[in-house]
């Protein structure tokens, strides 16, 4: 190795050490903060279909309203045949509660899980 190479190697070694040495270490607090942030970002990004929970809730509400409207229109005839069954709007309200509350709960749970 000639002097030229020796100078270059020694200087390169000093520069690399100065550039990546202990002085450039990240504080443990920042390291932990970043690790948590990245894990949360990764979880959020991997949320199935990335479908916004608010939109899902609105869609569910719309479907249930349509179902209720259908029930209100269709049920009186069937109720009349059976005689003692509750009227359409009341049945629709029951179904909306039976289906809507669990679905809304699931939406909230999944939203928290992937936030």
């Amino acid at each position: 190795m000639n002097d030229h190479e020796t100078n270059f190697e020694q200087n390169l070694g000093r520069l690399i050490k100065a550039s990546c040495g202990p002085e450039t270490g990240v504080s443990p607090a920042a390291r932990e903060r970043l690790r948590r942030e990245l894990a949360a970002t990764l979880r959020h990004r991997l949320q199935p279909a990335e479908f916004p929970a608010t939109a899902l809730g609105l869609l569910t509400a719309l479907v249930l309203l349509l179902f209720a409207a259908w029930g209100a229109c269709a049920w009186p005839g069937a109720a009349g045949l059976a005689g003692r069954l509750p009227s359409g709007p009341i049945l629709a309200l029951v179904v909306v509660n039976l289906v809507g509350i669990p679905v809304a709960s699931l939406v909230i749970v999944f939203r928290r899980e992937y936030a």
Partner: protein
Amino acid sequence: MGSDYKNDLDLAARVAQGDAGAFNDFYARHADLVFAFIYHLLNGARADAEEIWQDTFVAALHALPGYRGQSQLSSWLCGIARRKVVDFHRRRGGTREPVSSVPPEQLLDLMDSGPLPDEVLQQGAARARVVEALARLPVDYRHALIARYVDGQPVDEVARRLGRSYKATESLLSRGRTALRDLLRSIPHESYE
């Protein structure tokens, strides 16, 4: 570390798919180098560097599905970091301290001719240039050079760590230095003005 992935593209794809092990490797491999790059670009402003470091990795994680392996992953991350630093200076609106940096050819001449002056060694721009060049190096060169010069390991210890013979490690270090020299010359000076 390193043998589980075919290349950076494979690692990036597995992180993007949510592979926890790949995510840990991605973080372990690149976090320190990227921080050093930002830290020097900001002339040692640690608190700001940590904030930009975090922004860089979060942005990278979102952009990872678009990574096509056109450059080393660490180099790609440095590119994101550089843009974050530029944004940071823009937000600060002219509070950036003037950076004096030695042009690449002059830096290499100085490195060839004798001990590097302390004022050059202290320059954030010169140090950031070295980190960026390291980030562009093939991984085995980078690991060898860091083990040798940052950790101060003798060649036989570097060889043991890398699982290579003494001769092969000497050759690896020599090729790594040559590659680094070429990269130091090729990174545009404007990047550090």
